[in-house]
């Protein structure tokens, strides 16, 4: 079905637009990445409200992370997270071996320097979703070989 392609094209265009309309200083500042991440945050916030409308209440943090890895990822990217690791002290690493938004970019190391732009929105998405479920966090992403990527979630204990 062409459904996935719609979001991917829109996402790519959003990134292009943000970078094209950036002022001179902004590109080096990383303000574009922040803009993308904040967009993702608001979207994640709203999406989680919709997805958890009918689910039961979550028991604890791990339950929330599992929900993100399975149901949330499936609804947005039509697949689950391949690997979830934690050190049980507030750091979770979500590994996706074939991240949908990167598959069309390259199948190896080509264009690696552009990959962070394409991950910013998703980082925001995860952060927004977690924040709406009551979990304050910082989400970063790293790519070594496309299309696999890792999202690191650091839970902030207030």
């Amino acid at each position, binding site marked *: 079905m062409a459904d996935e392609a719609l979001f991917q094209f829109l996402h790519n265009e959003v990134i292009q637009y943000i970078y094209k309309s950036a002022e001179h200083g902004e590109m080096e500042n990383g303000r574009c990445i922040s803009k993308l991440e904040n967009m993702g945050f608001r979207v994640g916030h709203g999406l989680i409200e*919709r997805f*958890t409308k009918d689910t039961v*209440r*979550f028991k604890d943090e791990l339950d929330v992370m599992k929900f993100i890895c399975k149901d949330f990822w499936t609804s947005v990217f039509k697949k689950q997270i391949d690997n979830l690791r934690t050190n049980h002290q507030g750091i979770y690493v979500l590994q996706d071996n074939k991240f949908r938004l990167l598959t069309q970019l390259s199948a190896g190391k080509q264009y690696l320097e552009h990959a962070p732009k394409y991950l910013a929105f998703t980082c925001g998405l995860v952060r927004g979703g977690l924040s709406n479920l*009551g979990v304050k966090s910082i989400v970063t992403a790293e790519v070594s070989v496309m299309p696999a990527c890792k999202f690191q979630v650091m839970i902030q204990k207030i």
Partner: protein
Amino acid sequence: MAVCIAVIAKENYPLYIRSVPTQNELKFHYTVHTSLDVVEEKISAAGKALADQRELYLGLLYPTEDYKVYGYVTNSKVKFVIVVDSSNTSLRDNEIRSMFRKLHNSFTDVMCNPFYNPGDTIQSKAFDGMVSGMMVQVS
């Protein structure tokens, strides 16, 4: 038919309170505020009572001499409180549940509205309309 409906944010401030205008609104605000304690108790106690820990609907929070107060918590810790008249005994549990369901659906729509910033009071006319449909009609 409710006498007062309130939506309370995760940080326990009201996002939306609407009550039947003929009566003293302050009394309803107070009732909703005190019901928050009961909601907190139910959420934290749910850890031990395995039977209903997973439900979003909290049921009857506490009855006063004139009113009955019902509660519902979403996964994002937003609380809905409905106050109904005690004299109206024909309202069954299912009806209250369906009222909460409608509230939750409308609330989700408000959340997804790009012009709504999470944390603001709810100004949506659609939400207002839906709530009016659930309140006691007074002319």
